[in-house]
Protein backbone atom coordinates (compact mmCIF):
# COMPACT_ATOMS: atom_id res chain seq x y z
CA UNK A 1 0.00 0.00 0.00
CA UNK A 2 2.99 2.23 0.33
CA UNK A 3 3.10 2.31 -3.45
CA UNK A 4 -0.32 3.96 -3.56
CA UNK A 5 0.72 6.35 -0.82
CA UNK A 6 3.79 7.39 -2.78
CA UNK A 7 1.85 7.82 -6.02
CA UNK A 8 -0.71 9.84 -4.16
CA UNK A 9 2.05 11.98 -2.65
CA UNK A 10 3.16 12.95 -6.16
CA UNK A 11 -0.40 13.77 -7.18
CA UNK A 12 -0.95 15.71 -3.98
CA UNK A 13 2.16 17.85 -4.34
CA UNK A 14 1.35 18.64 -7.98
CA UNK A 15 -2.18 19.68 -7.11
CA UNK A 16 -1.26 21.68 -4.01
CA UNK A 17 1.51 23.39 -5.90
CA UNK A 18 -0.83 24.23 -8.77
CA UNK A 19 -3.64 25.48 -6.54
CA UNK A 20 -1.23 27.99 -4.99
CA UNK A 21 -0.66 29.81 -8.29
CA UNK A 22 -3.46 28.43 -10.48
CA UNK A 23 -1.28 29.55 -13.38
CA UNK A 24 -1.70 26.44 -15.45
CA UNK A 25 -5.37 25.77 -14.70
CA UNK A 26 -6.32 29.34 -15.52
CA UNK A 27 -4.43 29.37 -18.78
CA UNK A 28 -5.85 25.99 -19.77
CA UNK A 29 -9.42 27.11 -19.09
CA UNK A 30 -8.93 30.44 -20.78
CA UNK A 31 -7.43 28.78 -23.80
CA UNK A 32 -10.27 26.33 -24.25
CA UNK A 33 -12.72 29.20 -23.82
CA UNK A 34 -10.93 31.01 -26.64
CA UNK A 35 -11.02 27.94 -28.85
CA UNK A 36 -14.79 27.76 -28.41
CA UNK A 37 -15.14 31.42 -29.37
CA UNK A 38 -12.82 31.19 -32.36
CA UNK A 39 -14.65 28.17 -33.72
CA UNK A 40 -17.88 30.01 -33.29
CA UNK A 41 -16.53 32.62 -35.71
CA UNK A 42 -15.02 30.05 -38.02
CA UNK A 43 -18.23 28.03 -38.41
CA UNK A 44 -21.11 30.42 -38.60
CA UNK A 45 -23.44 29.62 -35.71
CA UNK A 46 -26.48 30.35 -37.82
CA UNK A 47 -25.84 27.40 -40.06
CA UNK A 48 -27.89 24.29 -39.52
CA UNK A 49 -25.02 21.85 -39.99
CA UNK A 50 -23.22 23.13 -36.93
CA UNK A 51 -24.27 20.06 -34.99
CA UNK A 52 -22.09 17.90 -37.18
CA UNK A 53 -19.02 19.83 -36.26
CA UNK A 54 -19.85 20.51 -32.70
CA UNK A 55 -18.30 17.46 -31.08
CA UNK A 56 -15.15 18.16 -33.08
CA UNK A 57 -15.01 21.69 -31.69
CA UNK A 58 -15.40 20.41 -28.17
CA UNK A 59 -12.56 17.94 -28.52
CA UNK A 60 -10.27 20.43 -30.22
CA UNK A 61 -10.78 22.67 -27.21
CA UNK A 62 -10.10 19.81 -24.79
CA UNK A 63 -7.05 18.52 -26.57
CA UNK A 64 -5.37 21.80 -27.29
CA UNK A 65 -5.69 23.04 -23.74
CA UNK A 66 -4.80 19.58 -22.48
CA UNK A 67 -1.52 19.88 -24.37
CA UNK A 68 -0.69 23.00 -22.35
CA UNK A 69 -1.06 21.05 -19.14
CA UNK A 70 0.93 18.13 -20.49
CA UNK A 71 3.82 20.30 -21.54
CA UNK A 72 4.15 21.55 -18.00
CA UNK A 73 3.77 18.16 -16.35
CA UNK A 74 7.43 17.22 -16.73
CA UNK A 75 8.56 20.55 -18.15
CA UNK A 76 8.27 22.33 -14.82
CA UNK A 77 10.07 19.57 -12.95
CA UNK A 78 12.85 19.80 -15.47
CA UNK A 79 13.10 23.60 -15.39
CA UNK A 80 13.02 23.90 -11.62
CA UNK A 81 15.47 21.02 -11.26
CA UNK A 82 13.11 18.97 -9.11
CA UNK A 83 13.08 16.11 -11.60
CA UNK A 84 16.25 14.60 -10.16
CA UNK A 85 14.80 14.88 -6.67
CA UNK A 86 11.82 12.89 -7.87
CA UNK A 87 13.96 10.33 -9.65
CA UNK A 88 16.09 9.88 -6.54
CA UNK A 89 13.06 8.82 -4.51
CA UNK A 90 12.75 5.11 -3.86
CA UNK A 91 9.85 4.58 -6.22
CA UNK A 92 9.64 2.69 -9.49
CA UNK A 93 9.42 4.63 -12.76
CA UNK A 94 5.90 3.29 -13.10
CA UNK A 95 5.00 5.02 -9.81
CA UNK A 96 6.36 8.34 -11.03
CA UNK A 97 4.48 7.84 -14.27
CA UNK A 98 1.20 7.08 -12.50
CA UNK A 99 1.53 10.06 -10.19
CA UNK A 100 2.19 12.42 -13.04
CA UNK A 101 -0.52 10.86 -15.19
CA UNK A 102 -3.19 11.11 -12.52
CA UNK A 103 -2.24 14.74 -11.89
CA UNK A 104 -2.62 15.58 -15.57
CA UNK A 105 -5.88 13.69 -15.65
CA UNK A 106 -7.28 15.71 -12.77
CA UNK A 107 -6.20 19.05 -14.24
CA UNK A 108 -7.73 18.13 -17.56
CA UNK A 109 -10.97 17.04 -15.92
CA UNK A 110 -11.30 20.38 -14.13
CA UNK A 111 -10.66 22.19 -17.40
CA UNK A 112 -13.19 20.00 -19.19
CA UNK A 113 -15.93 20.65 -16.65
CA UNK A 114 -15.35 24.37 -17.09
CA UNK A 115 -15.26 24.13 -20.89
CA UNK A 116 -18.39 22.00 -21.01
CA UNK A 117 -20.37 24.55 -19.02
CA UNK A 118 -19.19 27.41 -21.24
CA UNK A 119 -19.98 25.26 -24.23
CA UNK A 120 -23.54 24.68 -23.01
CA UNK A 121 -24.13 28.40 -22.85
CA UNK A 122 -22.33 29.53 -26.00
CA UNK A 123 -23.55 26.81 -28.32
CA UNK A 124 -26.97 26.54 -26.78
CA UNK A 125 -26.82 22.81 -26.27
CA UNK A 126 -28.14 21.38 -23.08
CA UNK A 127 -25.71 18.66 -22.03
CA UNK A 128 -27.52 17.81 -18.80
CA UNK A 129 -29.62 14.96 -20.27
CA UNK A 130 -26.53 13.32 -21.82
CA UNK A 131 -24.31 13.88 -18.84
CA UNK A 132 -23.78 10.23 -17.98
CA UNK A 133 -22.80 8.82 -21.41
CA UNK A 134 -20.93 12.01 -22.23
CA UNK A 135 -19.06 11.78 -18.94
CA UNK A 136 -18.04 8.21 -19.73
CA UNK A 137 -16.71 9.18 -23.15
CA UNK A 138 -14.85 12.17 -21.78
CA UNK A 139 -13.40 10.02 -19.01
CA UNK A 140 -12.06 7.46 -21.47
CA UNK A 141 -10.74 10.14 -23.78
CA UNK A 142 -9.03 12.08 -21.04
CA UNK A 143 -7.52 8.91 -19.65
CA UNK A 144 -6.12 7.96 -23.05
CA UNK A 145 -4.82 11.43 -23.65
CA UNK A 146 -3.13 11.61 -20.24
CA UNK A 147 -1.73 8.10 -20.76
CA UNK A 148 0.16 8.80 -23.96
CA UNK A 149 0.65 12.46 -23.12
CA UNK A 150 2.61 11.76 -19.94
CA UNK A 151 5.00 9.48 -21.82
CA UNK A 152 5.62 12.16 -24.42
CA UNK A 153 5.76 14.92 -21.83
CA UNK A 154 8.65 13.12 -20.15
CA UNK A 155 10.29 12.61 -23.54
CA UNK A 156 9.91 16.14 -24.84
CA UNK A 157 10.97 17.71 -21.53
CA UNK A 158 14.58 16.89 -22.35
CA UNK A 159 14.56 17.64 -26.06
CA UNK A 160 15.06 20.84 -27.95
CA UNK A 161 11.94 22.70 -29.09
CA UNK A 162 9.98 21.11 -26.29
CA UNK A 163 6.44 22.33 -26.94
CA UNK A 164 6.48 21.76 -30.67
CA UNK A 165 7.92 18.32 -30.12
CA UNK A 166 5.20 17.42 -27.65
CA UNK A 167 2.36 18.19 -30.03
CA UNK A 168 3.89 16.42 -33.00
CA UNK A 169 4.59 13.39 -30.85
CA UNK A 170 1.08 13.29 -29.43
CA UNK A 171 -1.05 13.88 -32.51
CA UNK A 172 -0.12 11.03 -34.86
CA UNK A 173 -0.40 8.51 -32.04
CA UNK A 174 -3.68 9.85 -30.73
CA UNK A 175 -5.34 9.93 -34.18
CA UNK A 176 -7.52 6.84 -33.67
CA UNK A 177 -8.54 8.05 -30.24
CA UNK A 178 -9.56 11.46 -31.55
CA UNK A 179 -11.69 9.92 -34.31
CA UNK A 180 -13.44 7.63 -31.84
CA UNK A 181 -14.01 10.47 -29.37
CA UNK A 182 -15.45 12.87 -31.91
CA UNK A 183 -17.73 10.22 -33.39
CA UNK A 184 -18.99 8.96 -30.05
CA UNK A 185 -19.54 12.46 -28.70
CA UNK A 186 -21.38 13.38 -31.88
CA UNK A 187 -23.73 10.42 -31.53
CA UNK A 188 -24.51 11.30 -27.93
CA UNK A 189 -25.04 15.01 -28.61
CA UNK A 190 -27.37 14.10 -31.45
CA UNK A 191 -29.50 12.33 -28.93
CA UNK A 192 -28.38 8.83 -29.89
CA UNK A 193 -28.52 6.00 -27.41
CA UNK A 194 -25.37 4.86 -25.66
CA UNK A 195 -25.68 1.49 -27.42
CA UNK A 196 -24.87 3.20 -30.71
CA UNK A 197 -21.49 4.25 -29.39
CA UNK A 198 -20.42 0.82 -28.21
CA UNK A 199 -18.08 0.15 -31.10
CA UNK A 200 -16.34 3.48 -30.45
CA UNK A 201 -16.19 2.89 -26.73
CA UNK A 202 -14.54 -0.45 -27.39
CA UNK A 203 -11.82 1.29 -29.39
CA UNK A 204 -11.32 3.85 -26.65
CA UNK A 205 -11.03 1.20 -23.96
CA UNK A 206 -8.63 -0.82 -26.10
CA UNK A 207 -6.55 2.28 -26.78
CA UNK A 208 -6.35 3.18 -23.08
CA UNK A 209 -5.43 -0.33 -22.00
CA UNK A 210 -2.85 -0.91 -24.73
CA UNK A 211 -1.05 2.34 -24.08
CA UNK A 212 -1.20 2.01 -20.31
CA UNK A 213 0.47 -1.36 -20.69
CA UNK A 214 3.09 0.05 -23.05
CA UNK A 215 3.74 2.95 -20.69
CA UNK A 216 4.22 0.45 -17.87
CA UNK A 217 6.75 -1.46 -19.95
CA UNK A 218 8.70 1.45 -21.38
CA UNK A 219 8.57 4.40 -18.99
CA UNK A 220 11.72 3.34 -17.20
CA UNK A 221 13.68 3.73 -20.42
CA UNK A 222 12.45 7.26 -20.92
CA UNK A 223 13.54 8.70 -17.61
CA UNK A 224 16.94 7.05 -17.41
CA UNK A 225 19.89 8.96 -18.76
Amino acid at each position, binding site marked *: MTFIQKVWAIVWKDITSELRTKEMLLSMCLFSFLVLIVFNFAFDTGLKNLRENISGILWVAFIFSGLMGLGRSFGVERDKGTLYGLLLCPISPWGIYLGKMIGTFIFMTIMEIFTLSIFTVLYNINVIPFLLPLGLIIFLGTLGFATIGT*VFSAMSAT*TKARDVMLSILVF*PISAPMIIALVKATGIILWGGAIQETYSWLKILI*AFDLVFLLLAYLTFGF*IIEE
Partner: protein
Amino acid sequence: MTHNRAFLKIFQFVTFFMMLLALYAIFVYAPVEKSMGIVQKIFYLHVPSAFLAFFAFFITFIASILYLYRRDHRWDVIAFCSAEIGVIFCTIVLITGPIWAKPIWNVWWTWDPRLTTTLILWFIYVVYLMLRSVAGENQRSNFSAVFGILGFVNVPITFLTIRLWRTIHPLVITGKGINISTPMIHTLIIAFVAFCLLFFWLLINRIGLEKMRFKVEEIRGFIEDKIHLEHEKQGG
Protein backbone atom coordinates in the same frame (compact mmCIF):
# COMPACT_ATOMS: atom_id res chain seq x y z
CA MET B 1 36.24 -7.36 -45.80
CA THR B 2 36.94 -8.22 -49.46
CA HIS B 3 34.52 -11.08 -49.17
CA ASN B 4 31.85 -8.62 -48.05
CA ARG B 5 32.74 -6.22 -50.83
CA ALA B 6 32.40 -8.91 -53.46
CA PHE B 7 29.07 -9.97 -52.06
CA LEU B 8 27.84 -6.39 -52.14
CA LYS B 9 28.97 -5.99 -55.75
CA ILE B 10 27.07 -9.09 -56.79
CA PHE B 11 24.07 -8.01 -54.80
CA GLN B 12 24.15 -4.60 -56.44
CA PHE B 13 24.37 -6.14 -59.87
CA VAL B 14 21.48 -8.51 -59.24
CA THR B 15 19.37 -5.66 -57.91
CA PHE B 16 20.10 -3.54 -60.92
CA PHE B 17 19.34 -6.38 -63.28
CA MET B 18 16.06 -7.15 -61.54
CA MET B 19 15.05 -3.50 -61.70
CA LEU B 20 15.61 -3.47 -65.46
CA LEU B 21 13.75 -6.73 -65.81
CA ALA B 22 10.89 -5.28 -63.81
CA LEU B 23 10.76 -2.22 -66.05
CA TYR B 24 10.71 -4.45 -69.10
CA ALA B 25 7.96 -6.58 -67.61
CA ILE B 26 5.88 -3.57 -66.62
CA PHE B 27 6.06 -1.75 -69.94
CA VAL B 28 6.42 -4.50 -72.49
CA TYR B 29 5.35 -7.82 -71.06
CA ALA B 30 2.29 -6.83 -69.01
CA PRO B 31 -0.84 -6.13 -71.06
CA VAL B 32 -2.77 -2.88 -70.72
CA GLU B 33 -5.65 -3.32 -68.35
CA LYS B 34 -8.99 -2.89 -70.08
CA SER B 35 -11.07 -0.75 -67.74
CA MET B 36 -8.37 1.53 -66.35
CA GLY B 37 -6.04 1.71 -69.28
CA ILE B 38 -2.34 2.29 -69.07
CA VAL B 39 -2.53 4.09 -65.71
CA GLN B 40 -3.03 0.71 -64.07
CA LYS B 41 0.71 0.10 -64.50
CA ILE B 42 1.38 2.42 -61.55
CA PHE B 43 0.05 -0.50 -59.55
CA TYR B 44 3.37 -2.33 -60.02
CA LEU B 45 5.22 0.45 -58.25
CA HIS B 46 2.59 1.21 -55.70
CA VAL B 47 1.90 -2.21 -54.23
CA PRO B 48 5.50 -3.37 -53.65
CA SER B 49 6.38 0.03 -52.16
CA ALA B 50 3.43 -0.16 -49.79
CA PHE B 51 4.42 -3.62 -48.68
CA LEU B 52 8.05 -2.60 -48.17
CA ALA B 53 7.16 0.55 -46.26
CA PHE B 54 5.14 -1.54 -43.89
CA PHE B 55 7.86 -4.18 -43.71
CA ALA B 56 10.49 -1.53 -42.96
CA PHE B 57 8.44 -0.16 -40.08
CA PHE B 58 7.96 -3.67 -38.82
CA ILE B 59 11.75 -4.10 -38.78
CA THR B 60 12.00 -0.84 -36.84
CA PHE B 61 9.45 -2.16 -34.36
CA ILE B 62 11.27 -5.44 -33.80
CA ALA B 63 14.70 -3.80 -33.67
CA SER B 64 13.39 -1.27 -31.14
CA ILE B 65 12.16 -4.02 -28.86
CA LEU B 66 15.45 -5.86 -29.21
CA TYR B 67 17.39 -2.69 -28.50
CA LEU B 68 15.55 -2.08 -25.24
CA TYR B 69 15.92 -5.72 -24.33
CA ARG B 70 19.58 -6.13 -25.19
CA ARG B 71 20.84 -2.53 -25.10
CA ASP B 72 23.01 -3.23 -28.08
CA HIS B 73 23.36 -0.11 -30.19
CA ARG B 74 23.46 -2.18 -33.37
CA TRP B 75 19.73 -2.78 -33.03
CA ASP B 76 19.25 0.94 -32.66
CA VAL B 77 21.13 1.54 -35.90
CA ILE B 78 19.01 -1.05 -37.70
CA ALA B 79 15.80 0.49 -36.34
CA PHE B 80 16.86 3.94 -37.45
CA CYS B 81 18.04 2.98 -40.93
CA SER B 82 14.98 0.86 -41.56
CA ALA B 83 12.68 3.68 -40.49
CA GLU B 84 14.43 6.10 -42.82
CA ILE B 85 14.07 3.79 -45.82
CA GLY B 86 10.51 3.04 -44.77
CA VAL B 87 9.72 6.73 -44.92
CA ILE B 88 11.19 6.85 -48.44
CA PHE B 89 8.98 4.00 -49.62
CA CYS B 90 5.98 5.37 -47.76
CA THR B 91 6.49 8.69 -49.53
CA ILE B 92 6.50 6.85 -52.86
CA VAL B 93 3.25 5.15 -51.89
CA LEU B 94 1.64 8.42 -50.92
CA ILE B 95 2.69 10.08 -54.18
CA THR B 96 1.93 7.29 -56.63
CA GLY B 97 -1.41 6.60 -54.95
CA PRO B 98 -3.02 9.96 -55.74
CA ILE B 99 -1.50 9.98 -59.24
CA TRP B 100 -3.28 6.69 -59.86
CA ALA B 101 -6.44 7.82 -58.09
CA LYS B 102 -6.90 11.02 -60.04
CA PRO B 103 -7.67 9.48 -63.47
CA ILE B 104 -9.43 6.43 -61.99
CA TRP B 105 -11.50 7.89 -59.14
CA ASN B 106 -11.35 11.46 -60.41
CA VAL B 107 -10.07 12.68 -57.03
CA TRP B 108 -6.54 12.91 -55.73
CA TRP B 109 -7.39 11.73 -52.29
CA THR B 110 -10.14 9.98 -50.38
CA TRP B 111 -10.22 9.41 -46.66
CA ASP B 112 -10.36 5.71 -47.17
CA PRO B 113 -9.00 3.61 -44.26
CA ARG B 114 -6.03 2.33 -46.17
CA LEU B 115 -5.06 5.78 -47.39
CA THR B 116 -5.58 7.49 -44.07
CA THR B 117 -3.69 4.82 -42.18
CA THR B 118 -0.78 5.08 -44.59
CA LEU B 119 -0.74 8.84 -44.16
CA ILE B 120 -0.69 8.54 -40.37
CA LEU B 121 1.96 5.85 -40.63
CA TRP B 122 4.08 8.21 -42.70
CA PHE B 123 3.60 10.94 -40.10
CA ILE B 124 4.57 8.68 -37.23
CA TYR B 125 7.89 7.74 -38.81
CA VAL B 126 8.69 11.25 -39.95
CA VAL B 127 8.18 12.24 -36.31
CA TYR B 128 10.38 9.28 -35.34
CA LEU B 129 13.21 10.66 -37.49
CA MET B 130 12.63 14.13 -36.13
CA LEU B 131 12.71 12.89 -32.55
CA ARG B 132 16.11 11.38 -33.24
CA SER B 133 17.45 14.68 -34.42
CA VAL B 134 16.22 16.72 -31.46
CA ALA B 135 16.83 14.26 -28.62
CA GLY B 136 20.04 14.50 -26.63
CA GLU B 137 22.70 11.95 -27.48
CA ASN B 138 22.30 10.31 -24.15
CA GLN B 139 18.63 9.54 -24.64
CA ARG B 140 18.21 9.35 -28.37
CA SER B 141 18.25 5.57 -28.65
CA ASN B 142 15.85 4.99 -25.78
CA PHE B 143 13.39 7.63 -26.91
CA SER B 144 13.29 6.51 -30.49
CA ALA B 145 12.99 2.86 -29.50
CA VAL B 146 10.00 3.64 -27.28
CA PHE B 147 8.45 5.77 -29.98
CA GLY B 148 9.11 3.11 -32.60
CA ILE B 149 7.18 0.63 -30.47
CA LEU B 150 4.28 2.93 -29.60
CA GLY B 151 3.99 4.09 -33.20
CA PHE B 152 3.81 0.61 -34.64
CA VAL B 153 1.33 -0.69 -32.09
CA ASN B 154 -0.81 2.29 -32.97
CA VAL B 155 -1.11 1.27 -36.62
CA PRO B 156 -3.65 -1.58 -36.33
CA ILE B 157 -5.73 0.46 -33.89
CA THR B 158 -5.75 3.32 -36.37
CA PHE B 159 -6.72 1.05 -39.23
CA LEU B 160 -9.61 -0.50 -37.31
CA THR B 161 -10.83 2.90 -36.18
CA ILE B 162 -10.77 4.43 -39.61
CA ARG B 163 -12.48 1.43 -41.13
CA LEU B 164 -15.25 1.96 -38.65
CA TRP B 165 -15.25 5.66 -39.41
CA ARG B 166 -15.30 5.51 -43.21
CA THR B 167 -16.82 2.30 -44.41
CA ILE B 168 -14.64 0.87 -47.14
CA HIS B 169 -14.71 2.89 -50.27
CA PRO B 170 -16.37 0.84 -53.03
CA LEU B 171 -13.84 2.04 -55.58
CA VAL B 172 -11.02 0.42 -53.70
CA ILE B 173 -12.71 -2.93 -54.01
CA THR B 174 -13.09 -2.55 -57.76
CA GLY B 175 -9.53 -1.29 -57.84
CA LYS B 176 -8.20 -4.30 -55.98
CA GLY B 177 -10.58 -6.88 -57.30
CA ILE B 178 -9.81 -6.47 -61.00
CA ASN B 179 -9.46 -9.73 -62.83
CA ILE B 180 -5.71 -9.91 -62.99
CA SER B 181 -4.35 -11.90 -65.91
CA THR B 182 -1.42 -14.26 -65.58
CA PRO B 183 1.13 -11.92 -67.22
CA MET B 184 0.06 -9.26 -64.76
CA ILE B 185 0.71 -11.56 -61.84
CA HIS B 186 4.11 -12.42 -63.29
CA THR B 187 4.92 -8.75 -63.66
CA LEU B 188 3.80 -8.02 -60.14
CA ILE B 189 6.00 -10.81 -58.78
CA ILE B 190 9.01 -9.56 -60.71
CA ALA B 191 8.43 -5.99 -59.53
CA PHE B 192 8.03 -7.29 -56.02
CA VAL B 193 11.31 -9.16 -56.06
CA ALA B 194 13.07 -6.19 -57.62
CA PHE B 195 11.78 -3.82 -54.97
CA CYS B 196 12.65 -6.20 -52.17
CA LEU B 197 16.20 -6.43 -53.49
CA LEU B 198 16.32 -2.65 -53.77
CA PHE B 199 15.11 -2.34 -50.22
CA PHE B 200 17.71 -4.68 -48.79
CA TRP B 201 20.42 -3.12 -50.90
CA LEU B 202 19.48 0.32 -49.55
CA LEU B 203 19.27 -1.01 -46.01
CA ILE B 204 22.70 -2.66 -46.17
CA ASN B 205 24.25 0.48 -47.57
CA ARG B 206 22.54 2.74 -45.09
CA ILE B 207 23.63 0.58 -42.17
CA GLY B 208 27.12 0.49 -43.62
CA LEU B 209 27.14 4.26 -43.78
CA GLU B 210 25.99 4.54 -40.18
CA LYS B 211 28.67 2.09 -39.06
CA MET B 212 31.28 4.09 -40.92
CA ARG B 213 30.09 7.27 -39.27
CA PHE B 214 30.43 5.52 -35.91
CA LYS B 215 33.95 4.45 -36.77
CA VAL B 216 35.01 7.93 -37.79
CA GLU B 217 33.53 9.46 -34.67
CA GLU B 218 35.22 6.80 -32.58
CA ILE B 219 38.59 7.48 -34.19
CA ARG B 220 38.06 11.16 -33.71
CA GLY B 221 37.25 10.65 -30.04
CA PHE B 222 40.29 8.42 -29.68
CA ILE B 223 42.59 11.02 -31.21
CA GLU B 224 41.14 13.74 -29.02
CA ASP B 225 41.83 11.52 -26.03
CA LYS B 226 45.41 11.03 -27.10
CA ILE B 227 45.92 14.74 -27.58
CA HIS B 228 44.40 15.32 -24.20
CA LEU B 229 46.65 12.84 -22.49
CA GLU B 230 49.75 14.17 -24.20
CA HIS B 231 48.79 17.67 -23.21
CA GLU B 232 48.39 16.39 -19.68
CA LYS B 233 51.86 14.88 -19.70
CA GLN B 234 53.37 18.12 -20.91
CA GLY B 235 51.42 19.99 -18.25
CA GLY B 236 52.60 17.63 -15.52
